[in-house]
């Protein structure tokens, strides 16, 4: 369980995180979503006690990070896979971490095995590919068998196989009852990974809800209808107060109506239907609409996309 209350971080005049309050529940993967520069990493550093909040606080199971006894046993984190001395072997890297929190040496071999790095454990970490570094970082996070796990953009730059592995790994950790917080700037990725979403933009909380709720609330649902009597059906739907748009191929896009309602209306007046399919608006579009005003670095494309 992670609780942030009024968390604020200022760098001079820039406000990186602005009065942010949210909770992360155990047993679920929670996505921490926001455009680049929204303050996700800063927030994660504050959760870990690396950065000092200007105001507010964040508690892990009711305690600030600095009060945790041997904290790697409670919180595991992967903020940056490259935070390893390049000339140190993967095993030595995990060894000193384990030692610092009184974890036995055999635990190092266990986590190496879990992430599949046993064979390269003695090689210098500087020669690792991004995927391997990411696995080493995850091994470090898992060392203390922690109840709370934080991952900052864990799939960035990974190949599809690596992305799938991480996604399943995180879901497995949550299924064991752990609290898992994963940041990302990709809603489509989070929609597949996370059950809950904390969405921020420019350091402010935009929404906290379940992923399904967020997706339903923020995407426009339409129904695509094809019929030989499109004109007649269209007129009837407009009469009922729905918005109807005729597309170039002669099909209708109806918004504000459920497919059930359209089917009933068509059947009631004997209109033949060739297609009746609910459409879901793109997640990216919804995300852009929500966070559009809070993106720190606007690109031309973002402006025209709105």
């Amino acid at each position, binding site marked *: 369980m992670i609780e942030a209350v009024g968390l604020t971080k200022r760098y001079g005049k820039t406000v990186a995180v602005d009065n942010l309050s949210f909770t992360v529940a155990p047993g679920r993967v929670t996505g921490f979503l926001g455009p680049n520069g929204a303050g996700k990493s800063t927030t994660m550093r504050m959760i870990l006690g690396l950065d000092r909040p200007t105001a507010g606080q964040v508690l892990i199971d009711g305690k600030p990070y*600095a009060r945790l006894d041997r904290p790697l046993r409670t919180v595991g984190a992967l903020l940056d896979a490259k935070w390893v001395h390049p000339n140190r072997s993967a095993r030595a*890297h995990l060894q000193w971490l384990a030692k610092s929190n009184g974890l036995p040496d055999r635990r190092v071999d266990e986590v190496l095995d879990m992430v599949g790095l046993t064979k390269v454990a003695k090689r210098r970490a500087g020669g690792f590919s991004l995927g391997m570094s990411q696995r080493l970082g995850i091994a470090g996070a898992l060392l203390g068998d922690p109840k709370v796990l934080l991952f900052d953009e864990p799939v960035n730059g990974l190949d599809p196989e690596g992305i799938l592995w991480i996604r399943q790994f995180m879901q497995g950790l949550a299924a064991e009852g752990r609290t898992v917080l994963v940041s990302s700037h990709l809603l489509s990725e989070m929609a597949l990974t996370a059950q809950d979403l904390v969405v921020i933009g420019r350091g402010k909380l935009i929404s906290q809800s379940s992923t399904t709720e967020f997706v339903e609330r923020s995407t426009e649902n339409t129904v695509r209808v094809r019929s030989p009597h499109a004109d007649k059906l269209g007129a009837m739907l407009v009469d009922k107060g729905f918005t109807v748009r005729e597309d170039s191929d002669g099909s209708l896009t109806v918004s504000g109506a459920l497919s059930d309602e359209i089917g009933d209306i068509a059947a009631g007046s004997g209109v033949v239907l060739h297609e009746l399919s609910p459409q879901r608006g793109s997640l990216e579009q919804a995300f852009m609409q929500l966070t559009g005003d809070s993106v720190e670095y606007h690109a031309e494309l973002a402006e025209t996309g709105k």
Partner: protein
Amino acid sequence: MTLLAVERIKLFSTRSPWWCMLLAVGLTVGLGAIFALNWGGPMPVMGTVVVYNFGLYVVMVMAALAVTTEYRFGTIKATFQAVPDRISPMIAKAVVVMLLSGVVGLVAAFGSWGLSRVIADDSSGLALDSAADWRHLVGVGLVFAMGALLALGVGAMVRHTAGAVSIILVYALVVESLVGLIPNIGDDIQKWLPFLMAQKFILGDPDTGGIPAGEGPPVVGDLSPWGSFGYFAAIALAIYVISLVVVKRRDA
């Protein structure tokens, strides 16, 4: 104790500390041997360590690297995640680095002295038969240890390897000797500068037997040799303590 083991693993699982230690011993012993071969007359014990400062610079670079590489590669974050009070891992690092530097200093000093006994033309003055003789040799270990502490403090404050190393080397090699060139007050300031005080501790007040009057290495300062060491140690400790305060307050 576990934190000492952690810092030991960190230091010995990379290569640069090994190279630095070898270089520090090699430089001191090697240059000491050149002195021994060219010494006219009976060589005094002090003569075997006149070149201690080359080893000292290398040891200080090693100490600075012990902390700046942690910042360079982000492992300092993992360190503070593992031990969030921040002070105890920094103290453990200081203890390990100081012990190691002290041992390097002792090995360099006694190595140089031992080699000189073998190769010097006249080694009759090399018996360790006075407190001053012992101070010349053991002092190298003590100064290396305190110099390492000072360098660690500078490294923790500056965080960048290049910055920390330049500050340490430029100060110790150039600034302290140039201060003496300031008209009128230069000499008065110079005799209170820490590395010259450390030099007085190691090389100052030798036994008069082996060295003709006025022929010893130039030493400055009004304090006794041990007083000079106390002064050097106090400055090193002060810089280190300031670095602890900075590390504790700053975002990692």
